[in-house]
């Protein structure tokens, strides 16, 4: 006896139709919102950076929505994970723009991913706001119509700031470079060389190392023999800590002036007590920041994300801060433009005269020749005290 009952064709078709109706109905319902997209690393080693950006954007969006949203609509954030993979990031950006019709895109921590997305954004005339990745060519991309903007550090300017700090603070005369062997390290090698050249300073040497290197003593010994008096360090948190541990072992007490790699994780746990010797660049720090805006933002973060208890839980704060200001700048432009069309938003970004932001008061943050809202004067130097990133007074 057959016990299985067959689903009649009619029912199946009905099911299909019902499913289709639900699928298509959702975007129809969601059309009341103004959509913005974020493509960032939400998984993998850099997952914390994606989390920080989402937090910064979300608090800003909450503030905007509390005041009635933009162009009469609530603002909605759509997040896509690029897994730090440029190809995945490009696909995600395409999906957000073409299917979800986002008005603007935000970018994440990885320079290669942003570089993969920017040509697409330019072609489709969708504003792209970088809030972390520092690669110089993201905003300086040579496109005739450039839609890439940024509220973050720029490698080229960071390198100028690093050299200036090394000279002012330590009287560097013969600095050495210890750089990670990847495009980020290379981009900074160029930048540091140019910055040193501009100051007519020689360098003791340039050494590269790999992310997986356990022992960096051979490279560092070469720099020591060449008489390096300050080290410029460019690497993410884990490899940076290998440099510090190797220096410890050599008992070489040399000043280290670093890009912001160490801020990306548990640097003091990985590098030990000497972590505090590394002075690195940031665009923002909650610690030692008396501005009411910083205090209000931290309170808002604590309220929305109960797992945040102290400043140590929001390291590095740059992702949150850059995203927060970037979101408000885009919102200002959309409001000014009175439109969701890319070209109009771009023109409106140039028209922003003044905005009292979290990181600073922005005066004419963007012009057709400068798409970077932050400059070398906006960088601060910081160090790790325990788990917390504290600013250094120069």
């Amino acid at each position, binding site marked *: 006896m057959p016990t299985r009952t067959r689903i009649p064709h009619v029912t199946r078709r009905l099911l299909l139709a019902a499913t289709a109706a639900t699928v298509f109905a959702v975007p129809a319902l969601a059309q009341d919102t103004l959509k913005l997209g974020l493509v960032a690393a939400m998984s993998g080693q850099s997952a914390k950076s994606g989390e920080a950006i989402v937090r910064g954007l979300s608090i800003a969006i909450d503030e905007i929505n509390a005041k009635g949203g933009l162009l009469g609509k609530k603002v909605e954030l759509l997040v896509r994970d690029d897994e730090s993979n440029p190809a995945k990031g490009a696909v995600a950006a395409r999906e957000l723009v073409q299917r979800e019709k986002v008005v603007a895109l935000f970018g994440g921590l990885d320079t290669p991913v942003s570089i993969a997305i920017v040509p697409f954004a330019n072609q489709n005339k969708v504003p792209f706001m970088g809030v972390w990745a520092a690669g110089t060519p993201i905003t300086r991309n040579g496109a005739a119509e450039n839609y890439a903007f940024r509220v973050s550090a720029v490698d080229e300017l960071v390198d100028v700031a690093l050299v200036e700090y090394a000279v002012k603070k330590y009287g560097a005369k013969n600095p050495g470079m210890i750089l990670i062997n990847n495009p980020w390290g290379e981009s900074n090698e160029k930048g540091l060389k140019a910055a040193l050249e501009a100051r007519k300073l020689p360098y003791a040497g340039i050494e590269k190392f790999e992310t997986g290197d356990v*022992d960096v003593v051979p490279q560092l*010994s*070469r720099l020591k023999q060449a008489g390096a008096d300050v080290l410029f360090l460019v690497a993410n948190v884990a490899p940076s800590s290998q440099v510090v541990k190797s220096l*410890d*072992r050599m*008992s070489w007490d040399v000043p280290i002036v670093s890009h912001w790699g160490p801020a990306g994780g548990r640097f003091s746990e*990985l590098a030990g007590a000497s972590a505090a010797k590394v002075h690195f660049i940031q665009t923002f720090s909650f610690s030692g920041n008396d501005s009411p805006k910083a205090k209000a933002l931290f309170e808002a973060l604590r309220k929305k994300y109960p797992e945040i208890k102290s400043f140590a839980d929001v390291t590095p704060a740059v992702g949150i801060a850059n995203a927060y200001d970037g979101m408000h700048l885009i919102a200002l432009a959309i409001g000014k433009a009175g439109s969701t069309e890319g070209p109009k938003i771009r023109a409106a970004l140039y028209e922003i005269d003044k905005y009292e932001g979290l990181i600073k008061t922005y005066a004419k943050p963007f012009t057709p020749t400068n798409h970077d809202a932050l400059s070398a004067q906006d960088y601060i130097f910081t160090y790790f005290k325990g788990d917390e990133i504290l600013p250094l007074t120069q």
Partner: protein
Amino acid sequence: MLVVSAIISGLGLGSMYGLIALGFHVTYVVSNTVNFSQGSSMMLGAVLGYVFGIRLGWPMPLAILIALILCALFGLVVERTLVRPFAERGSNAWLMATVAGGIVLDNSVLFTFGKEPRGFPSVLATKPIDLFGAGVYPLQLVIPLAGLGIAVALHLALNRTRVGKALLAVVQNKDAAQLMGINVRLAVASSFALSTVLAGLAGLLIAPLYSVHSDMGTLFGIKAFAVAILGGITSAWGVMLAGLVYGLLEALVTAFFGSTYTQIVVFSVVIVALTLMPNGLLGRAAVNKV
């Protein structure tokens, strides 16, 4: 100064490569197969040691013991599911299966252990001691000693004991070995368990000098395989020696020519060495006994 510190760095690194490479040697001499997830086994040892010893706060010796037992279990699982089903059918698919197994393990650890690299403090790696003018952690001296000790023990165990000879008989002629009352499956399975324990031990020894994260073993696994081949995978001595040579070469090239040339020079030397000595430094030519 430069030479001394390079030699110490090189010997330290080299013995780590050698220790993991011994794991390749152990399974190869018994079953003619290797576990390409050795790098992941190394990571597993370090991650488990971290979880038990640091996160859960167990006494370190206990944490290390349990971590190594679990590594052995992982080796048994690899052999049973990723090697035996293929090798017994005469297929070489275990090659890809073990690579895939390693990737699965790396990613499972990524999700469970977390994404951030963690520090594994050790009393043996806090204060450097002075050795001929170069600083070195006591742990860096323990690693070569452990490596050499294990190579000696393996050599003696395989060539001087009944069990060792039984293991070697397995690879020469499986059927004959079985007829002589040797439990072939058990022999092969134990060799895999031993190989992952060696890798896990290497992971535990390296962790304090490095950091603990899910992909810490990838590069080590690749370099260790190069070392195993360079040494002649059939000789425990050769493998350990090749590890030291490889590590020294890496450190010396970096010290004298700069890090830009390290990988180019080292791997070129590996190629030349293998061209001149196809069976590795101390390996024997494979002879098929009919």
